[in-house]
């Protein structure tokens, strides 16, 4: 009963995603997350490459861009110089190594460039902002099968704390 809403379905959803368009994605997820999160609002602009980088740091096909954009905007607000300089360096590395912008490279090339900078304050700041933005985001909890705060529902004593029966 509980399983229908959990990431066991993730694989299914991901396969589903690959063969379907945005509207079907909205349909498939509409029972899981509030509808207003699915509305296709215009996203604020991020500098070139930053969203691509964010999606490479924590790639989740089933999470929409806006959930990456929001924490990255917050980071730019807090540490504009760090982000600008770090992104500049990344784009320069991309051009030097491949003659192209970071976001135009293929995945393996992007991951290799990011691995080179994973110890830098810029990369760590992006990673940290997304870690909170994606995994400490109540709107996204259901996509991972995490049910969050329970005391207001009387805990899990009557909500499946010992319902496992497949062993």
């Amino acid at each position: 009963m509980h399983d229908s809403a959990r990431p066991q379905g993730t694989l299914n959803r991901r396969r589903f995603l690959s063969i379907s368009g945005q509207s079907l994605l909205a349909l498939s997820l509409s029972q899981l997350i509030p509808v207003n999160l699915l509305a296709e609002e215009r996203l604020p602009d991020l500098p070139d490459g930053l969203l691509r980088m964010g999606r490479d740091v924590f790639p989740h096909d089933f999470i929409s861009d806006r959930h990456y954009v929001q924490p990255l905007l917050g980071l730019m607000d807090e540490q504009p110089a760090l982000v600008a300089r770090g992104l500049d360096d990344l784009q320069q590395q991309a051009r030097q190594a491949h003659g192209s912008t970071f976001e135009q490279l293929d995945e393996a090339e992007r991951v290799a460039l990011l691995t080179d900078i994973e110890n830098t304050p810029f990369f760590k700041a992006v990673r940290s902002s997304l870690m909170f933005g994606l995994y400490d985001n109540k709107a996204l909890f259901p996509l991972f099968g995490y049910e969050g705060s329970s005391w207001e529902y009387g805990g899990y004593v009557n909500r499946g704390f010992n319902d496992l029966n497949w062993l």
Partner: protein
Amino acid sequence: MATFAQDDDGVVVIIGSGAGGGTLANALAKQKIRSVVLEAGKRHSLEDIENDEWAMFKKISWLDKRQAAGGWHLTENNPTLPAWIVKGVGGSTVHWAGIALRFRDFEFRMQSINGDIAGANLLDWPVTLEEMAPWYEKAEKHMGVTGPSTGMAYHPWHNSFKVLATGAKRVGYKEILSGPMAINTEPYDERAACQQLGFCMQGCKMGAKWSTLYTDIPRAEASGYCEVRPQSMVLRIEHDAKGRANAVVYADASGTIQRQKARVVCVAGNSIESPRLLLNSASAMFPDGLANSSGQVGRNYMTHTTAGIFAVMPKPVNMHRGTTCAGVISDESYNDPSRGFVGGYRLEILALGLPFLSAFLDPTPKGWGKQFTSRMEKYNHMSGVWLCGEDLPLENNRITLHDSEKDQYGLPIPVVTKSDHPMDAAMRKHGVAATARCYEAAGATDIIELPPYPASHNMGTNRMSAKARDGVVNKWGQSHDIPNLFVSDGSQFTTSGGQNPTLTIVALALRQAEQIGRLLNERAI
């Protein structure tokens, strides 16, 4: 609620309000002994407790700057937060698992059983299990520990423990129990029964888990024999010309310096702040810090030998549902040096929410990318274990004072230096492999080893010893050097044992309270 004057020199001043200090204050109050509890943090109530991992972390954790040093991974990956403990009334009885295990007999006698271990500073406790047994029973009744002392049933097995226990049985383990826990399974001591909230660790919203925050502290205050002063950060302990402690200097909530006179001083600030305070209290008479004629103050810092192990199972587990740590496998908790290490360890079920799993799954710089996210996407298929094993005392694993960096009170920040003994590393490897075997026997498709979390079990930095030259305090937690100065927290542990420390801290505090009462009556202090 009583209040006592700053110049009242008849009070016992207790520094810290957690398992040691909070228990002690209440036990002294029952003997009509007056105490002032100075607590560095704020006072929270059950209304403040949320089922939100980061919100609680920010609300209750001790976040004053500390520096990690030495060979442990926290030096790299958590350089300013080596320990994960509480700044607030109730101390680390707000943030704890609730697992309430007694030491085993051999764990008080590690040196005589195993002899000297090269590189370790091993010593027997000046206390035996036989002597502690009645105090353990009192502590279990006091805290409401499931099992024989209270008659409370052990917790029902939740999903995650069903997985671990099934695997454990298949590999031949026999000692499989969902306790003992200081979390009520029925109403006990005016507190409710557990409803499987799943957010035990950083404060039980319904008060089913024992904490001094809503038991010992308010009861001590209600007795009229105890005054608790929150947001009172102790800066130093002072002494008279005879070398007796006689006052405690602290900064109050407004930052104003206050000075409380004292007949007895009990230090219970956990194993980083307690030795730090003794070191910061150095004087012309005690140039190396108070109670430090042995040179052992701050040394022998122990955290338990730990690792996190998470298994991805073929079908959903939903580990977040239910009592976070109600499940212990104990077959490896004996002294069997043939395994390549001394002392034992337990496998303890431990659930993390999605936010904390993301932070601890791989805290190294490699914790990103597809492997990371594919594991996160298996969140609800996971079951997890925390390893709790004997951590050998090493003289150079220690708390020292930073030579230049100061905190907001102007005190040198503590430097927390820790490295593994080779036997610690061997135990960790053994424990991770044992856990993996259990989970694989239950059908795990992926096993993930997490490096140790910032330390919540901190022990040994003011250790007990029979002889003054070997340690800081005697078998009562009383300073060898200064008879009216006591240590009342886990820093008095001579060795760590392979057991969660809270029950032993409480048992020692109850026992110490009786001894302080006796000494006061005899006018010996």
